């Protein structure tokens, strides 16, 4: 194609003049400009690839000569390994390599201070499913046969299955891990106690004190894609690992460290990931095993977890036993909160140090506390390790606290939405534990769900058996401090501009389905004025892209978004300067949008964006830019642990749930959840709504259906997973899931990209307490333990005072609200 023809075609593809005029004449109060891509309901950049079966996931990759691996797992919850004999397995035809713990004797762990696991157990197994040996063979069938030929001699040890037992081990019992110091209990991962203000005095002085014991059952992520990894150690001595991970950077570092390789000769590629939710956010045994097996036999090796292995790999929501005390004044002001949590961690530390802090640190917004104390202890047990699941560490205490607030509202006969408004923390302030909170749209969230749900007509007014409940929450948009201490940028991109107008963004961000590739593309398209289809995103391949720390703690939109802005604005500046120079206009007169560079005072004066890029390339040389983002480091409390929970921005959410409870059976049906979420700014509303709906769904699932539980000695083999299949674990189908209505609230954060904050984890939190509170409104019983299963709800309903409590609650609040409604 001739260049003129090409440009003509490109100009035809760009937007008509009227659209450009609308852009410059529009008025967006917050930014004094109208967006052309940001805030629009664009089709996800990966949408068609995923909908046509073309997106390539790890298990879709087959390399020439590839072998298949399998991992032998412990049948005991706690045992010493006395010996392992692999000779028979090695001699089975078709087997190419067998490895055990001795092949990789370096411990690993996502948190550098708690590296307590080995890719394959060295001398002790700590849960049923702990990895013991691995095999690479010509096919899976042969690998499975080889596992059967490995002889392991165990000395079985008493197992700790309950956190209380682990906390107080019998004399002489072997703790799950060596104590960090002599005399300490090796069953404790972390203990934290922090106090802000005079909790005991204010509890004394409070007009009302609400006390409650709460239990949050463990749950797991259950992404539909099982974990999968391929390792290839090529003859030049370079290791490549393809893995369904959400933290390629941390995996990259840990692979090199554990395998004792030069990190510059290790490459981690993250193919399309089929869901993660926190369940793929640290290294797993299979990633080390495929690498080591390939190093041993010189061929690519793939391991794909079975669904059962995914359940045992776990790293999901910690079971927590919580005791909360809440002291308030007669008008409902929160004077004192005292929260204690016993956290069941499973066999390894995982992110447990952070979990322990999060269980207390993230409770201090969106409400102002007069004083606050929390004490959290995470203990090891002989079960699969818990870790970060969507809303890491804070979903459990949030459940307890929001139910406490509902009980306080009940005690004081205050509408629970009004109670929450009265205690609103505000924006541009500090929490009692000195977290810096900037934008805060929580009140708008409360207003939105109150209105949309018809709260005033429903609360305490629906017939017996039906009810509504409200809850609120906050969550971090990334963490100010990375997992391993360093001063380097947390996120970075590199943008390359081609003469055709095509723009490629090399992005470190980890796309796990949440849409980070799309976020990158819309920001760059907005800044450089190219159509969205001109932007390609290359992401999460350590050979090609700059470092981003990964998709965890809801950090990608905020951090990679700011990195994109940084890079794209450098390029934009060059382009407007070059066009301005060519037209003899100041650069401020030049706009880039919808495929054009044009004069903002006269949009008829315009050239296709590719020509504008060419002017800039002629003036400044080849166009490219790097952009990066680092977090503020001086905005946290100066106490030990004050950095944990510190985030550049916090999101806020409010939910109203409507339920129907069958008093005969205890079956709870959630009719609908209204979700209002302050995401700062919705860079793409479709993606934000998707995160909100998906979060509320997942919270609903934890409230009513899911439980990651293990058998005790009286019910089969102790430590065995109760239901390691998607059917028995009961993740909700379309028929189980309630109607979900997402309402976006935009508070426009001063530091977020275009004001954006997180949307992926915050909206999960309130689902659970909102449902709990709705159950009370429906039938007058408090179910303080999860899940709200029919037997549990039915048992609560057997309390002879339940009906009277329901009637009393109605009388106390319905009457004033009724008169208010009449006045309207």
């Amino acid at each position, binding site marked *: 194609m001739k260049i003129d023809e090409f440009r003509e075609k490109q100009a035809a593809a760009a937007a008509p003049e009227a659209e450009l005029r609308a852009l410059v004449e529009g008025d967006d109060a917050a930014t004094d400009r109208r967006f052309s891509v940001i805030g629009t309901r664009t089709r996800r950049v990966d*949408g*068609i690839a995923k*909908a046509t079966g073309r997106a390539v996931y790890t298990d879709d990759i087959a390399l020439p000569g590839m072998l298949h691996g399998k991992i032998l797992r412990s049948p005991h919850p706690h045992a010493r390994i006395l010996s392992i004999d692999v000779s028979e397995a090695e001699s089975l035809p078709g087997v190419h390599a067998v490895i055990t713990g001795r092949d990789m004797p370096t411990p690993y762990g996502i948190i550098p201070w708690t590296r307590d696991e080995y890719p394959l157990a060295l001398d002790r197994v700590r849960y049923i499913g702990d990895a013991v040996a691995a095999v690479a063979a010509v096919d899976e069938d042969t690998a499975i046969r080889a596992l059967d030929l490995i002889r392991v001699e165990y000395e079985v040890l008493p197992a700790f299955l309950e956190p209380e037992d682990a906390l107080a081990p019998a004399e002489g019992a072997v703790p799950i891990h060596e104590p960090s110091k002599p005399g300490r209990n090796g069953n404790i991962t972390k203990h934290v106690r922090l106090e802000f203000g005079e909790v005991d005095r204010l509890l004394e002085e409070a007009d009302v004190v609400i006390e409650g014991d709460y239990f949050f059952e463990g749950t797991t992520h259950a992404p*539909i894609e099982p974990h999968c990894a391929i390792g290839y150690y090529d003859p030049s001595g370079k290791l490549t690992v393809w893995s369904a991970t959400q933290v390629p950077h941390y995996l990259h570092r840990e692979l090199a460290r554990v395998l004792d390789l030069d990190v510059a000769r290790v490459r981690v590629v993250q193919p399309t990931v089929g869901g993660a939710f926190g369940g793929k956010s640290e290294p797993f045994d299979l990633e080390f095993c495929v690498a080591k097996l390939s190093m041993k036999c010189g061929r690519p090796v793939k391991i794909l977890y079975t669904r059962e292995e995914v359940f045992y790999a776990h790293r999901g929501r910690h079971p927590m036993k919580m005791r909360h005390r809440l002291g308030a004044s007669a008008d409902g002001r929160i004077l004192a909160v005292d929260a204690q949590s016993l956290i069941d961690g499973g066999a390894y530390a995982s992110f447990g140090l952070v979990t322990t802090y999060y269980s207390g640190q993230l409770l201090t917004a969106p409400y102002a506390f007069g004083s606050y104390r929390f004490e959290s202890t995470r203990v090891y047990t002989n079960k699969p390790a818990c870790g970060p699941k969507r809303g890491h560490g804070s979903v459990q205490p949030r459940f307890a606290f929001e139910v406490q607030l509902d009980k306080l509202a009940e005690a004081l006969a205050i509408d629970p939405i009004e109670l929450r408004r009265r205690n609103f923390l505000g924006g541009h302030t500090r929490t009692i534990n000195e977290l810096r909170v900037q934008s805060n749209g929580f009140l708008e969230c409360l207003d939105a769900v109150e209105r949309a749900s018809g709260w005033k007509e429903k609360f305490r007014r629906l017939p017996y058996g039906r009810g509504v409940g409200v809850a609120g929450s906050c969550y971090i948009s990334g963490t100010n401090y990375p997992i391993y201490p360093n001063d380097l940028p947390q996120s970075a991109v590199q943008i390359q501009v081609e003469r055709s107008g095509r723009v490629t963004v090399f992005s470190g961000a980890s796309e796990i389905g949440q849409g980070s590739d799309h976020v990158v593309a819309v920001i760059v398209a907005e800044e450089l004025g190219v159509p969205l289809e001109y932007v390609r995103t290359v992401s999460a391949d350590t050979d090609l892209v700059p470092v981003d720390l990964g998709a965890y703690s809801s950090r990608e939109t905020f951090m990679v978004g700011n990195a994109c802005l940084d890079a794209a604005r450098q390029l934009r500046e060059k382009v407007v300067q070059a066009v301005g120079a060519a037209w003899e206009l100041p650069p401020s007169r030049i706009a880039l949008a919808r495929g054009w560079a044009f004069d903002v005072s006269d949009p008829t004066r315009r050239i296709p964006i590719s020509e504008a890029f060419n002017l800039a390339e002629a003036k400044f040389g080849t166009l490219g830019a790097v952009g990066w983002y680092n977090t503020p480091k001086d905005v946290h409390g100066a106490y030990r642990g004050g950095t944990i929970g510190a985030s550049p921005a916090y999101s806020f959410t409010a939910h109203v749930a409507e339920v129907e409870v069958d008093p005969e059976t205890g079956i709870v049906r959630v009719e609908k959840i209204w979700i209002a979420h302050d995401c700062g700014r919705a860079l793409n509303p479709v993606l934000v709504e998707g995160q909100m709906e998906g979060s509320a769904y997942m919270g609903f699932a934890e409230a009513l259906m899911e439980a990651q539980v293990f058998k005790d000695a009286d019910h089969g083999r102790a430590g065995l997973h109760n239901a390691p299949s998607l059917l028995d674990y009961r993740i909700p189908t379309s028929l189980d899931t309630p109607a*979900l209505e997402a309402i976006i609230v935009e508070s426009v954060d001063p530091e977020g990209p275009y004001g954006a904050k997180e949307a992926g984890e915050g909206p999960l939190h309130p689902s659970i307490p909102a449902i709990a509170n709705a159950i009370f409104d429906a039938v007058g019983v408090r179910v303080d333990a999860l899940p709200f299963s029919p037997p549990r709800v039915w048992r609560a309903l057997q309390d002879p005072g339940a009906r009277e409590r329901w009637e009393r609650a109605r009388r106390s609040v319905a009457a004033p609200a009724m008169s208010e409604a009449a006045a309207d």
Partner: protein
Amino acid sequence: MHAIVTLTVNGDRRQAGVPTHYTLLETLRYALGLTGTKQGCDKGDCGACTVLLDGEPVLACLTPVWEAEGREVLTVEGLAAAGEPHPLQAAFGDHGAAQCGFCTPGVLMSAHALLLRNPAPTRDEIREALGGNLCRCTGYTKIYEAIEHAAAILAARDDGPADAGLAATFEPAGATQEDRS
């Protein structure tokens, strides 16, 4: 032990030498290179492997490949016409019905089977039809919206000039949030 199986996949007559215990899913993914169909559980719980066998949705992971011998299989790769996504696929992209995308091929095949037998399903009929497909990302809402949208487009196509129907049902690509409300 291996044997040769013959089946028609997405209109092509294909033969493959596979272990005799292979399922239709393993044959598609590992012998025929059609990796669009996903394995999420390998035991019939999740529905990610849903394909159409002679027009009816089946779980490929529970279907011994010999049951497909000589029959017609339609997978997600066969849904699109040349160079153009099927309206269901376009709608899944537009409505954010595919987040991680792993359940998407199976959901699409269930939805396609539904629209073949019921071109204008209600929301409840859609929920019923997807009862065997687990999605962990979306909460299903966006999936319903996409299927309803695709059904409207397909109906408009059948009723008259395609362009008029498309214009009536598609939101403009650049619609802002304000425009929408």
